[in-house]
């Protein structure tokens, strides 16, 4: 088993896998918290244009992808913060424009770039170049510093944005920071997991962790642990099985999710029962239960106003 450590390319692949396992679930926890897990997918699509530009201009695809992904993520954040109904159409254009741009540019690039382009889509353990390792480590350190160091502030912004603004936090800045961090994570992950599967590593470890956790920080920590475990295991597995590493890692993450969901099923049932019991006790103790329902219904129009009027 340890003989895989004798190969330089495997050492690099395992370092990159550790970076992916730490960063993708870390930023993913915040994206899942505000039900925006799909954002990673969109940034991945946009980053394709960056990778292709890197090939075309013979510069490092990693840095070019980082640049384009950040521009795309900031664009998505602006669309999100405006909260317009036409927002999803704007996002679709950004996502698929980015993907089409990548495919178009890669065909203009000289040589056999199309084959190596595929390794960026689904990940590959053999392609992590020595200079990539440096870039990946620097970018991963940035992501971990933001997601751990600012966890209280980012938690507040993702939990309840309007409340966070009234506490005087620089919410607009923190939102941009989340977008930039997500973009950087995509480029950290693209070598090992691939641009089309990166979103899975942002969402699945978090979904798996929250089957058994009660708090935010414990979810964050467990998601990162699961992330590192599956990405190291998946990377090692593709040394023996000739398959894209991203596919192996994501399948392992799904397996971990299923195992935890099964193990936690009795726990979830017990929690649901005790919550239902608490609410039933309150409802029966309250002659106002019907009125309470009335007033909940009555508040709906104002709730809708609140959404329409989101201002950042």
């Amino acid at each position, binding site marked *: 088993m340890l003989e895989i450590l004798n190969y330089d390319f495997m050492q690099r692949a395992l370092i990159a896998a550790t970076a992916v396992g730490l960063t993708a679930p870390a930023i993913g926890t915040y994206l899942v918290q505000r039900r925006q897990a799909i954002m990673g997918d969109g940034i991945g699509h946009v980053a394709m244009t960056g990778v292709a530009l890197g090939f075309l201009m013979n510069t490092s695809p990693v840095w070019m992808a980082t640049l384009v992904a950040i521009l795309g993520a900031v664009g998505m954040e602006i669309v999100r913060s405006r909260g317009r109904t036409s927002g999803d159409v704007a996002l679709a254009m950004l996502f698929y424009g980015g993907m089409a741009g990548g495919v178009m540019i890669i065909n203009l690039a000289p040589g056999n770039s199309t084959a190596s382009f595929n390794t960026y889509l689904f990940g590959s353990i053999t392609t992590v170049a020595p200079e990539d390792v440096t870039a990946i480590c620097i970018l991963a350190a940035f992501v971990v510093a933001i997601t751990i160091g600012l966890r209280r502030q980012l*938690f507040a912004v993702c*939990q*309840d944005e309007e409340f966070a603004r*009234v506490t*005087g936090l620089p919410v607009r800045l923190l939102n941009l920071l989340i977008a930039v961090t997500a973009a950087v994570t995509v480029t950290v992950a693209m070598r090992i997991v691939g641009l089309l599967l990166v979103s899975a590593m942002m969402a699945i470890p978090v979904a798996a962790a929250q089957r058994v956790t009660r708090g*935010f920080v414990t979810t964050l920590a467990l998601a990162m642990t699961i992330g590192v475990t599956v990405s190291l295991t998946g990377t090692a597995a593709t040394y023996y099985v000739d398959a894209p590493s991203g596919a192996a890692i994501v399948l392992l993450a799904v397996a971990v999710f299923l195992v935890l969901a099964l193990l936690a099923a009795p726990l979830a049932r017990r929690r649901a029962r005790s919550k239902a019991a*608490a609410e039933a006790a309150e409802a029966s103790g309250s002659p106002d239960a019907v009125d309470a329902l009335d*007033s909940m219904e009555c508040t709906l129009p104002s709730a809708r106003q609140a959404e329409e*009027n989101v*201002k950042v």
Partner: protein
Amino acid sequence: MDHEEPEAREPVISLTGARATLGSRPVLRGVDLTVRRGEVVALLGANGSGKSTAVRAAVGQVPLSGGSLQLFGTDLKRFRKWSRIGYVPQRTTAASGVPATVREVVSSGRLARTKLGLPGRGDKAAVQRALELVGMADRIKDSVNALSGGQQQRVLIARALAAEPELLIMDEPMAGVDLANQEVLAGALREQVADGVTVLLVLHELGPLEPLIDRAVVLRDGCVTHDGPPPKAAASTPPSSQLRSSRGYPQPGHDHVHPHDGPGAEPIRTGLLS
């Protein structure tokens, strides 16, 4: 508490001639709302009357197309001391896409003071105190997802109290909250008012808070139609089915004691109805 005439105290919120639109629909059409230090003001009105928009405008969360807003005598643009304000937005849940403990949610209210820095011992103590005020200290390690709607609302109010604000602004704090939890919230609010905290709250009906309210401002179609003593028995809210039991006073099967009835109860402030 001081005994000056309320008119002599300095205003903490002054919303003057406020106008706001949602899309092309005018929601506020020149609303004047002044809340002075130590007052407890209820904002009443039918659905769609603009009361929620008015209160969100008062914390700078709705852009005004006309008029002005001053908080603690400072124009909104230059106002920075947000820790003086505790805000409870209108929500029916404290939960989000990822589990969070009661402590984590309430601690985020403390960010008004710690900002980008690290929390210290005093911050942890303030979170604990805020939870004790709403009677949720024993649930501090629990997930908010495991709480009932009324308990979640208590957690959200503790989150606002964690910053130890001078002004509490609450948007429908009683919506969807059962009577027992309403009484707990009324008790917590009574303590805050006794400590001199100013309160502005949107209410659908006065309910158990009625004895606390000094003044009611009634909105209709984005205009103020009443500013003065609170109407008796929530007469301003049209659906008459709610008048029946809206006062929150003893009902069959509901036998707890009102705190202000007890002999040792602290004197509540001199509201018009108390």
